[in-house]
Each structure stands twice: as structure tokens, then as C-alpha cells.
């Protein structure tokens, strides 16, 4: 039974990688500044719609739309951060929730207005369709691509965090913002840049997600829950935590559905509850 299971596990891992891309930005920014940005998935939705518009209306090739999605989401986050979010860093968590939920509502309505409520179709280039057979295991070509992209991005992120001065600043700010400020690190600027990067990654994740989960104006809401699950299970402020949590959740979800389909959707919540009760700060979390 290992042949079919391997294929199914791979699909679960790929789905987990998608969740990772959507969540990693939120994990790092939440860990750094404790700013609860529930509008994170709105940036993902923005990235998705940008990619779809460029592909369907302007005929751009699929790969070219990905950096555009990243940049659009990053730019939008910079604007929002400067104008609105900045005022609420000192505000209560509840106010931050309310503000960002208000933004989610507005983004969902705006998407419905601009693009209609219909599903956005995405036509992938031919070499990304269908499946590749590896030793008798069917691996979907697009999922292979997704795993590859996620791996590349993880490497870049980890390398940036470990080996660049900016990465060191970010790590310091996550560990102890007050101390970092005391050492002369411009925490606010570090945060602004990290926030833009995290939102950009969400936008990229959104663009990549369309081919697997589809895109409609409700996207900003639907995926919020899963992103929150990944972030809390993985731990705040850590890339590795998001990666592990997303992979774990994706694989256990799929393995559960394969072996015990009656448990269906219960499993992912049970796994989440179990992991949180075992490690409340998250798998790799610190606080």
C-alpha cells in the first residue's frame, strides 16, 4: 500500500507547503510586533486577483504573474501600514482585530465588485498540467512545482535570516524588541520591511493557490482559519515553526482522510488541539 499512500502523502505535503507560504508572513510579523493582522489573507487574495488579471486579461505567462503578485501585495501592505496600521501598534489587541476585520470586509466587497462573484479560472502552462510518474507513484506536476517553489523560498528566507545583517536585526527584534531598540536597531523600520515581505509572500501564495483551491471573493475569509491554525501550531516568529506545522497538518489531514475517511474533517482540528495542548507556545515557539 505504500505506492498509493506515497502519492497521497505527497499531495498532502504540497498542500501543506501552500499553507506555509500563506502563513509564514503572519507568523514572523505577529512574533515581531504582536500586531494582529487578520487581513493577512486579503493580501493573499489580492495577489491571486492580480495574477489572474494579468494572465487572463493581459495574456502574461503564468511565471511572470508570480513576482507581480508578490510586489502588488507588498506594495498594498506598505500603504496600509503607513496609513492605518501604524497608529494601532500601541492599541489593544481587540482594536487591532476590529480594524483588520474591517479591512477584510472591505476587501471582500471590493473583490466582488471588481471581479464579480464567479470563480476565477486559471489556465496553467501545459507542462504544469497532468501528472509525472516517478517509480509508479503519480505526482501532480503542479504540486511538484509548488513544493519546489516553497523549498526555494524557505531556503532564501532562512539564509536571509541567518546570514544577513538585516536578518540578524529581525531575529533580535523578535526575541526582545525593547532590548533591540536599546541596541540602536531601528525596530520600526525592520518591522515595516518584514511586514511588506510577509504580505508579499502571502500574495505569492495566493497566486500559487488558485490552481489548487480556486479563487473567489470569499478567499480572504476561508483561508484565515487555516493560516491561524498553522501560525499558532508552529509558533510565533519562526519560519521553521510554520514549515513544520504546515507540513504536519497537510500530511496528517491527508493521511487521515485516506485511512479513516469517516473522521474526515475532524482530524485536522483534533491534531491542532492535541498539538496546542501539548505545546501551547507552538512547536518552535518561544513564549
Amino acid at each position, binding site marked *: 500500500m505504500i505506492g498509493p499512500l506515497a502519492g497521497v502523502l505527497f499531495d*498532502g505535503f504540497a*498542500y501543506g507547503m501552500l499553507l506555509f507560504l500563506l502563513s509564514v508572513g503572519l507568523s514572523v510579523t505577529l512574533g515581531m510586533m504582536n500586531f494582529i493582522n487578520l487581513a493577512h489573507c486579503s493580501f493573499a487574495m489580492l495577489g491571486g486577483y492580480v495574477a489572474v488579471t494579468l494572465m487572463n486579461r493581459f495574456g502574461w505567462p503564468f511565471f511572470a504573474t508570480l513576482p507581480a503578485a508578490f510586489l502588488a501585495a507588498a506594495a498594498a501592505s506598505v500603504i496600509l501600514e503607513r496609513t492605518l496600521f501604524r497608529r494601532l501598534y500601541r492599541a489593544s489587541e481587540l482594536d487591532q482585530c476590529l480594524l483588520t476585520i474591517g479591512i477584510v470586509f472591505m476587501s471582500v466587497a471590493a473583490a466582488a465588485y471588481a471581479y464579480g462573484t*464567479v470563480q476565477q*479560472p486559471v489556465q496553467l502552462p501545459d507542462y504544469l498540467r497532468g501528472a509525472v510518474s516517478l517509480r509508479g507513484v503519480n505526482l501532480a506536476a503542479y504540486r511538484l512545482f509548488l513544493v519546489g517553489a516553497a523549498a526555494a523560498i524557505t531556503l532564501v528566507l532562512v539564509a536571509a535570516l541567518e546570514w544577513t545583517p538585516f536578518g540578524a536585526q529581525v531575529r533580535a527584534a523578535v526575541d526582545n524588541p525593547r532590548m533591540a531598540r536599546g541596541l540602536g536597531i531601528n525596530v520600526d523600520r525592520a518591522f515595516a520591511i518584514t511586514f511588506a515581505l510577509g504580505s508579499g509572500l502571502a500574495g505569492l501564495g495566493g497566486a500559487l493557490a488558485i490552481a*489548487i483551491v480556486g479563487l473567489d471573493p470569499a478567499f480572504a475569509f476561508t483561508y484565515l482559519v487555516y493560516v491561524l491554525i498553522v501560525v499558532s501550531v508552529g509558533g510565533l516568529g519562526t519560519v521553521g515553526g510554520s514549515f513544520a506545522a504546515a507540513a504536519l497538518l497537510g500530511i496528517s489531514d491527508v493521511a487521515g*482522510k*485516506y485511512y479513516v475517511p469517516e473522521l474526515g*474533517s475532524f482530524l485536522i482540528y483534533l491534531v491542532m488541539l492535541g498539538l496546542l495542548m501539548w505545546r501551547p507556545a507552538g512547536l518552535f515557539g518561544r513564549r
Partner: protein
Amino acid sequence: MRKALIGLGSLAIGLFAAATVDAQQTVKIGLVMPYSGQFADAATQMDNAIKLYMKQKGDTVAGKKIEILRRDTGGVAPDVAKRLAQELIVRDQVDILAGFVLTPNALAAADVSAEAKKFMVVMNAATAIITTKSPYLVRTSVTVPQLNETFGAWAYKSGVRKIYTMVSDYGPGHDAEGAFQRGFKEAGGEVLGAVRFPVANPDFSAFVQRAKDLNPEAIYVWVPGGVQPAALGKALAERGIDARKTKILGQGELTEDEALRSMGDAALGIVTVYHYDHNHDSALNKAFVNAYRNAYGGRNPNIYSIGGYDGMHLTYEALKKTGGKSDAESLIAAVQGMQWESPRGPVAIDPQTRDIVQTVYIRRVEKRDGQLLNVEFDKIDAVKDPFKARMKN
């Protein structure tokens, strides 16, 4: 708070005044639909068709002007739907309740229709029991057993002997599973196994792999429209189930336009059952589809559109028959046994159940002129809802 009260009070007075002035000359129709939220697309398509009908036939019938009021339920929210129906009747004095994309909302509003004695037209919600909830209720869309039980019997006739079923784990999915299996087994077929996908986040891989392990000659699937059909279609292709070798049977949502575009050639050969496709080859339908496309940016009408279009037609014809009288008793008497030619084919309203009787089509996905289409290749005429037919006996 006081300002709000004053504002609300004046609004109420204003509406009351507006209502009494024209009460004699207008027939008010209250549309209760999920204009926002997850199911907004269905509401958009239905509303578009309603607007198109009124544009084509004018907004005056039997000397009365038709006025439309729109209310949003936001999705599945029977308490809201009930309140909106009540408010439409008490506050806005509507004569007719219409719309209703979702079953729980339709059921809740049916209570209001029965209590307040108002004519109600269900233009989409497909659960069989809905029409039993109010004696003033008529449906112009379809019922789940009408499609799936017929499909089960047809599947056996077409040569399938053993089948594996996969449906979404909630009400409509269970209904579809029950109806299909019943039709199939009564005809003599055998159900190899059945599995249910969770409604949210149903990553189909694992389930499709389980199906493949059993290597059935045919698989029956049922998922709600929206994102899931494309995802399921792709999962079937990715796990190596070829629609041309293993028969894939499903309800028409599986192969709707957007899903076909996302699935690509992997969809070729999928056989579905439905009561309407924009591809249907009749002059009336071609005219309808062209008018719809012209009015709505090239988008094709779908089942929500036809439910709305036929619902308006029914209402107009009923009003013509009653000479403009809009009380529930007259209207319901007028619609029973009504028959007409719709863009989907010939339809009628069953006088006993007030439900729709129509032709059920079997289609296959084929490529014509480089485009993927659902091509009708078989049909069963004048299908009544089997569920309620059994209830009588």
C-alpha cells in the same frame, strides 16, 4: 441611539406612506437571496435572469406594475431569511415571495408563506420536501431526486453494473447519494462502496486514491458548485483515473463552465445529468443565451439563471390568468398544471405537488471548435419528483 430610533421611525413612516399610495396598481415581489457571501454567484446569475426577463417582457402585467424588492440573507441563515420574509410581508406589503437559492432559507420562509398566506416561488433550492411546507409554494428549478434517481436508473441501462459513490458530507450530498443509489439499485446495479468528503477543505487526493484502489468500472461523484468541481476533476486526473476508461458520473455542477476551463482536457468523457445547459440546441435557448450574453458581459446563463427566468415567466403567466389578482389562493390555482416551453425544454407544474416536471438530460464533455462543452446525448422526458411521488403511496 436616539438618532437611530428617529431615523428608523421616519423610514418606517415613509415606507408606509409609499406603500399605501400605489397599493392597488402594483404587484410587489420580494426576492430573498444570498446576494453576499459564499453563494453570491448563484444569486447574481438568478438576479440577472430576472432582470433580463423583465427587460424583455416589460414590467407591467395584466394592468399591474411589477415592483421588485431585494433582500440579502448573506448565505445559509434561516433565521435571517425568515425575518426578511416576515418584514417583506409586514413592512413592505409584498404580494409574492421569490428567489431562495438555499434550502434552509427556503424552508424557513415557507413557514412564513403558509402563515401569512403568500404566494412563494422557489427558484433554486433543490431539496424535495420544500414544496410540502406551504400550500402556496411552487418551485421552478429542480429537485435532487429528480436528477439523481433518474441518473441512477439510466446508468444501469447504459451498461454500468457496479459503481463507487463519492459525495460531499452534508444534506444535499446525502440526498444525492441516496437518490442515485436508490435508482441504480432498483434497476439492478450494485454499489461497491461509498465515501463522503468533508464539506470544507476537502483535499480530494486521499479519497480519489481510495476509489482507485478498488478499481471500479464507474464512479459517481457529487460536490457543490464553486471551487470544488475543478479541484475534484484535477484530483481524478492527477491520481490517474482516466474519464474515458473509468466512467465518471456526476451532477451538472461538476462540469460547469469555470470548472471545465480549469480542468482542461482532463474533463473529456465525464458524463453528467442536469436539467439545463446553455448549449442546449433549441431556437428559444439560443435566443435566450444570446440575450443573456449581450446583457451580462459574455457570461453564459446557468441553472440559477434558468430557475429565475422560468420563475418570472410563471409569475407573469399566473398574473395574466388571474387578471392581476395577487392573492395566494388565486395564484396557486392558476399555476397548477401550467405548461410552457422554456429555454431548457418543455416544463410543467405538477398540480398535486406544485413542483416542476421537466426533461432530464444526460450529457458528456466533448471538445467542439476547441472549446469544452457539455453535449446532450440522451434524455428522459417529463420527469416528476420521485421522492414526493413515493410519499403519496
